[in-house]
């Protein structure tokens, strides 16, 4: 039965843990599962599956007679709907053509997009003046060509019609002149009193231009102060660790989700995967241990994962550190919990001196960071796999630069004018920082923001901020590399950037972004040549100030030698030596023991995987992207462990109330396999009130329980089931390939013993028997290889594909019916017990079968084979029978049940890729291997009568992938990159036994477990 048939996701199936255990006990070989319901595999689940299929009929409640009437009417009226002339269109040429532009050819501009202040280098495609697609900048250290989901979604953010479009004074529309007038007026007032009462609140920044402006502000108004607010607290990380995951053989993550780190996640992923190639003869594969309370992307890549409450991690780290410090590889541990784990990990770490790495997560207290540093020092890793440097985020030279300090002063009436640049503290400040009441006490509040959000609604003045793709700017990457950000388009709504507004406040020339940045860089990029080179490459080739001190607000960059060990690390080491015998350093003992022994629940606060802390809430692409691991869309949930859910007696999507610090919130439960038993996780970014039409009213606001003192954790949690039921859209069961064997996984040892283990049990060889004749060979045969061992499940491919191929957002109600349109989905499989399963990711684009089942069933030849082996979908022929989708064993075809593509909003029209058709209602669509890129390369090569070079065609998913897991090219050329990937012994075809001969094949996932932890579960 096709999964295109509408299916509701809310499974009213009671998951019985006893039956799960019984099933797992009696099974042989590998068994992957995608949800607890499937794992339980109860009668009820099958009954539910069957009962859910006829939902399509239920969607249109019609009797036979009514149906025939409608059928007749629609036939009679069908002709009318087509009754129109082809539209008369116009050509509007330029008055003066921009230099260097060739009509119809895209151009790429190097710039940077920032996340929490840190730069991510990108190349942005410009189609006749419209930015339409973001690619990674191969020259930029934080990108190396890859991107994360946020960089891809920046295009939709730029074109979001809900962005703030005018200056507002209260509820009246005002002009920029008015806004500048107020700033000038305040500046005059402060000139008299030295800036007493003047405050500026900014997000985290590394921008040298803005930092210089802040220094100028401090100089001109000695009593003025500025503060940094970041809900992600990246600014609060006073140290920046530069990790070299490619050099590490053993990595231990203490609640560190370094693969989705906003500072350098893309680079981390590339480095991490570089050291995990089992076929690389030059190096052995690295091993990753993850200790974490709530499953993360990094945890899903772990060879061994230990679910452990966040409050228990300091104690665990203490034991591990003690063992490492003692250099004790005997393995004789005390009887404490996880003793085997600690011993095995310590032994592994010590065995790889200088090639091991301990990473502490930013949600962990400073003590864990100190322990991680001391372990790295003891293991000789500092300088090898990790370097500690100062944070690049600017902090004020004097005074407390925190939001809490600012709010305290606001309450005390010490603040006269507050200028908020690109921040939204009314939404994302902790609840104990009463921002709303504080704002009311400030006579003059001015807000600059991309949206007129919660803060913009409350501020006296609000002004539209220019998007990063609309404004000049600069920023530094995690390693200090600086880049100039150049605009791709003039501000759509006349917005200005933060540096331009700062210039208005400071007065004097220049006030325009380009001149400001140019002036800030006048020493380093003194002539046009250097400036243009910096713009063109996207990086400034001046030695970065990495090995230095914090970049101070005065702009000075003292070049200090690399600090191998920070002062804190040294003191931690001293503490550890003192406590060599007991497992836990004394400083931590009391605290952590209580939390480990007690029955307390803990509430963890985390950014949402796709919309971060709320800044991306109004982005439909990100809302609809199934969140890694949970596969949920459009909502946030309360993650609880299977054991806790049983104790509470709740099922998925049933409501709970969370109480902490006298506050409470309600939300739906999601039973998370692999969640630490006593940990409950909530995610930020939802419960928005003034984000825009996409985000408003979705989910619950987790900031309601967050405190400034303990931003990542609340230990006084009470949780009560409310009996409510929520309707949540999640894609877990969509497009299932039931009862088959799509995923192949082995351990490194298995791989060494039999490199071809992945295909060992295939019933047929690479070319199973077929009734259909082979197509004659052509000049090229396009194929794709996806390395499951390199896929971290970040889903950048899905968003990149959505951006490149004009894939519309369908909305929560449609996702609930299984109608999402993503051409490349990332399936997530679990293996093992629900308490701590292994998890696997599998991106599934079109398989481009050589003997495609979809082609033979199309009654109108709308899906056909082309000469070069692609299975093409012809939209203008498609009549929407959906036979092809029913016959597709991989479930990769997507149908436009409604007119999903917005044909009217001008912003969306401008956003689309002009090389790809915008599909209508009633048309089937699917992955095309980016046929537009193939054709463009074909035309360029054919014009010059040459062959298409290997690597000339890069599909959108391939380009975005941070780890280069996806490779594409000509498989008839044995030297091509993709052919070499397919020559790997790990290569296998999905559902090979069906004889479809897919052109997309997979490389099996290899895990590298520690033999000493063999029967420890994961």
């Amino acid at each position: 039965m096709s999964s295109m048939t509408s299916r509701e996701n809310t499974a009213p199936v009671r998951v019985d843990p006893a039956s799960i255990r019984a099933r797992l006990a009696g099974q042989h070989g590998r068994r992957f599962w995608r949800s607890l319901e499937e794992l339980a595999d109860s009668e009820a689940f099958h009954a539910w599956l069957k009962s859910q299929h006829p939902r399509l009929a239920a969607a249109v409640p019609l009797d036979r007679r009514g149906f025939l009437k409608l059928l007749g009417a629609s036939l009679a009226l069908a002709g009318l709907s087509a009754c129109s002339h082809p539209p008369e269109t116009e050509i509007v040429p330029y008055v003066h053509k921009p230099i260097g532009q060739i009509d119809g050819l895209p151009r790429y501009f190097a710039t940077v997009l920032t996340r929490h202040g840190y730069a991510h280098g990108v190349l942005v495609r410009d189609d006749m003046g419209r930015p339409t697609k973001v690619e990674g900048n191969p020259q930029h250290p934080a990108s190396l060509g890859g991107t994360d989901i946020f960089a891809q979604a920046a295009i939709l953010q730029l074109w979001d019609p809900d962005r703030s479009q005018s200056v507002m004074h209260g509820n009246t529309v005002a002009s920029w002149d008015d806004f500048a007038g107020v700033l000038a007026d305040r500046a005059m007032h402060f000139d008299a009193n030295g800036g007493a009462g003047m405050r500026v609140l900014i997000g985290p920044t590394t921008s040298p231009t803005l930092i210089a402006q802040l220094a100028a502000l401090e100089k001109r108004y000695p009593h003025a102060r500025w503060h940094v607010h970041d809900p992600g607290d990246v600014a609060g990380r006073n140290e920046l660790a530069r990790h070299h995951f490619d050099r590490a053989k053993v990595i231990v993550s203490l609640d560190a989700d370094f693969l989705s780190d906003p500072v350098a996640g893309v680079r981390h992923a590339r480095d991490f995967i570089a050291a995990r190639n089992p076929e690389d003869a030059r190096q052995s594969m690295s091993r990753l241990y993850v200790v974490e309370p709530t499953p993360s992307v990094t945890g899903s890549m772990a060879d061994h994962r230990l679910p452990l409450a966040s409050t228990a991690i300091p104690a665990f780290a203490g034991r591990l550190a003690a063992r490492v410090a003692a250099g004790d590889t005997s393995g004789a541990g005390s009887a404490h919990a996880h003793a085997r784990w600690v011993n095995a990990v310590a032994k592994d770490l010590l065995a790889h001196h200088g090639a091991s790495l301990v990473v502490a997560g930013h949600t962990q207290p400073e003590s864990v960071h100190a322990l991680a540093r001391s372990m790295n020092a003891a293991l000789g890793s500092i300088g090898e796999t990790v370097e500690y440097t100062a944070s690049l985020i600017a902090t004020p030279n004097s005074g407390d630069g925190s939001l809490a300090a600012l709010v305290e002063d606001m309450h005390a009436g010490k603040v006269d004018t507050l200028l908020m640049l690109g921040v939204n503290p009314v939404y994302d400040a902790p609840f104990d920082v009463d921002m709303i009441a504080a704002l009311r006490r400030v006579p003059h509040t001015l807000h600059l923001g991309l949206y007129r959000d919660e803060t913009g609604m409350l501020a006296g003045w609000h002004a539209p901020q220019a998007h990063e793709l609309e404004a000049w700017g600069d920023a530094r990457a995690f390693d200090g590399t600086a880049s100039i950000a150049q605009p791709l388009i003039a501000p759509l709504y006349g917005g200005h950037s933060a540096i331009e507004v700062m210039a208005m406040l400071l007065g004097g020339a220049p006030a325009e972004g380009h001149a400001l940045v140019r002036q800030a860089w006048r020493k380093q990029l003194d002539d046009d040549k250097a400036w243009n080179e910096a713009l063109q490459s996207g990086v400034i080739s001046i030695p970065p100030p990495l090995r230095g001190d914090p970049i101070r607000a005065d702009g000075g960059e003292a070049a200090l030698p690399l600090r191998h060990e920070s002062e804190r690390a040294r003191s931690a080491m001293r503490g550890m030596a003192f406590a060599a015998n007991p497992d836990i350093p004394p400083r931590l003992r009391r605290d952590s023991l209580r939390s480990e022994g007690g029955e307390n629940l803990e509430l963890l606060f985390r950014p949402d995987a796709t919309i971060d802390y709320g800044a991306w809430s109004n982005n439909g692409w990100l809302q609809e992207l199934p969140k890694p691991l949970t596969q949920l869309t459009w909502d946030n949930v309360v993650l609880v462990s299977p054991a806790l859910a049983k104790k509470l007696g709740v099922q998925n999507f049933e409501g709970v109330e969370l109480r902490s610090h006298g506050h409470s919130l309600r939300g739906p439960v999601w039973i998370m396999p692999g969640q630490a038993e006593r940990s409950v996780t909530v995610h930020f970014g939802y419960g928005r009130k003034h984000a825009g039409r996409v985000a408003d009213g979705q989910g619950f606001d987790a900031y309601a329980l967050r405190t400034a003192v303990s931003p990542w954790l609340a230990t006084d949690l009470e949780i009560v089931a409310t009996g409510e039921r929520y309707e949540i859209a999640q894609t877990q069961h969509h497009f299932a390939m039931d009862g088959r064997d799509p995923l192949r996984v082995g351990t490194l040892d298995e791989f060494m013993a039999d490199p071809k283990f992945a295909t060992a049990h295939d019933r047929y060889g690479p070319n199973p028997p077929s009734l259909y004749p082979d197509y004659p060979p052509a000049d090229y045969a396009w194929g794709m290889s996806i390395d499951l061992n390199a896929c971290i499940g970040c889903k950048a491919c899905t968003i990149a594909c959505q951006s490149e191929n004009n894939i519309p957002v369908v909305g929560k109600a449609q996702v609930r019916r299984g109608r999402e349109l993503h051409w490349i989905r990332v399936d997530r499989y679990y293996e093992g017990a629900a308490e701590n399963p292994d998890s696997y990711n599998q991106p599934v684009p079109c398989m481009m079968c050589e003997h495609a089942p979809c082609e033979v069933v199309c009654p109108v030849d709308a899906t056909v084979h082309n000469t070069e082996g692609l299975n093409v979908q012809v939209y203008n022929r498609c009549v929407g029978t959906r036979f092809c989708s029913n016959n597709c064993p991989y479930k990769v075809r997507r149908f436009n049940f409604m007119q999903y593509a917005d044909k009217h909003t001008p912003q969306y029209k401008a956003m689309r890729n002009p090389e790809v058709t915008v599909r209508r209602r009633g048309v089937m669509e699917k992955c095309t291997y980016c046929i537009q890129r193939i054709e463009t390369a074909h035309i360029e090569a054919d014009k010059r009568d040459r062959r298409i070079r290997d690597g000339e065609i890069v599909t959108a998913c391939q380009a975005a992938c941070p780890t280069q897991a996806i490779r594409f090219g000509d498989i008839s050329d044995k030297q091509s990159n993709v052919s070499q990937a397919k020559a790997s012994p790990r290569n296998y075809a999905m559902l090979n036994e069906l004889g479809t001969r897919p052109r997309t094949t997979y490389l099996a996932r290899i895990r590298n477990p520690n033999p000493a932890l063999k029967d420890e579960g994961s």
Partner: protein
Amino acid sequence: MAQIFPKRFALWFQLFLIAVAVGFVSWAFLWRWAMADPVGIREPVEQPVPFSHKHHVGDDGIDCRYCHTSVGQSAYAGIPPLSTCMTCHSQLYTHQKVLAPLLTAFDSGVPLHWKRVYKLPDFVYFNHGIHIAKGVGCASCHGAVDQMPLMSRQQHLTMQWCLACHRDPEKHLRPRAEIFNLHWHPKNQLALGTRLMRKYQIDKRRLTDCSTCHR
């Protein structure tokens, strides 16, 4: 057997038949009219400035690529920016009434809105550059523009018409030197075309793939 219908019913029946026939025919005409292109084939299209290809190409001998600069590189031949017009018309005929919209547009910076003459559906991705590179002359689709005072569409632009050439390109190919020659007629097109097919490495199999034009 007695007659079921009275005699005068025959008239009504005949009238009904006529009505059906008339209705059917008028429906067909209505359909044709409704689906027709806004401007017919070889029917001149009125433009804000009555630009004459006959004068510029035929009389003055200006090369196609002087204005349509991107024809060899891009999918679009390119409609010239007004600054191209002003290379001559800043000096020539500046007081002519017909040129007034051009000068106003240039001075005010508000571009001219030309009517599109050759319109393909949005799902068709035609590329000028590859056709130029593979020896399809301008005149094959656009006709003898040097004889057109106002531009008009010369071909139906139906898929059948596209395919006629994509199936048998040898019937239309010409040497690259003659691409922009609007009045070039070979002695033996088939022999020449077959030779050029080999020379230009044209893979006929690919030409009729759906994906060649539809994405």
